[in-house]
């Protein structure tokens, strides 16, 4: 099992969720976070914003479903310009995949 943490733009969250639903992935946890990337935030005129609001999605999936789910999130969360809709912009986010050793359902206690 793997745990996917996707940090994405808040405005693309709905798009990503709908894309995951089409691939039969419904279970997820959402979280409001702030963060910055290697560009150290954004500069608007003379003001520097070092913490930019983002949305984090946490999804746990069996190993064989991970590659597809990552690709779905990637395509749905990627923004672009008018001419090139999927060219990607700074700040589109990151996806991290980590190991999960056990998973328990509290209601039934099954592993």
């Amino acid at each position: 099992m793997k745990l996917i943490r996707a940090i994405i733009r808040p405005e693309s969250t709905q798009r990503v969720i709908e894309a995951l639903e089409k691939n039969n992935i419904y279970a997820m946890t959402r979280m409001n976070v702030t963060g910055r990337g290697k560009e150290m935030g954004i500069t608007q005129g003379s003001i520097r914003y070092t913490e930019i609001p983002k949305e984090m999605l946490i999804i746990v999936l069996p190993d064989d479903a991970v590659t597809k789910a990552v690709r779905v999130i990637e395509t749905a969360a990627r923004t672009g310009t008018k001419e090139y809709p999927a060219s990607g912009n700074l700040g589109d986010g990151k996806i991290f995949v980590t190991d999960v050793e056990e998973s328990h359902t509290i209601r039934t206690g099954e592993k």
Partner: protein
Amino acid sequence: MKEIIAIIRTEHVEPTKGALETIGVKGITFFNVIGRGRQGGTIRAPDPEGTVRRDVGVYIMQQRGIISKADDPKYHVPVQKEIELGFLPKKMLMIVVNDDEVPLVVDTLTQINRSGQQGDGKIFVCPMIDAVRIRTGEHGNKALS
């Protein structure tokens, strides 16, 4: 070291804190999250609008003479309908413990948070490579004790 991520109901936070304290787990991080499970945020419940469906069984019972009137409203069965709830507020706990404490913590979390209804939550156990106590710079298991 293992990281335990538990997603529980918000009303179960206080009992969980107390239970974890009694088994000696003191360091917990809480997150406010919203989430949904395998059902995609829908539950099945009786329709309050009152559309009723007659159970086939009562007609068989009428034929066999067990009951006299199958049309009686007391034999009506309420229709189940799916209610869309969407993302619900939950609490996420992050606990880092030594390997040998994992079964105890998982059992405690399961027992305290179980109500038997859908939406009780999930517990995930993930490997954790290192921990550092910032105050002293200690690494590994020393940083947890």
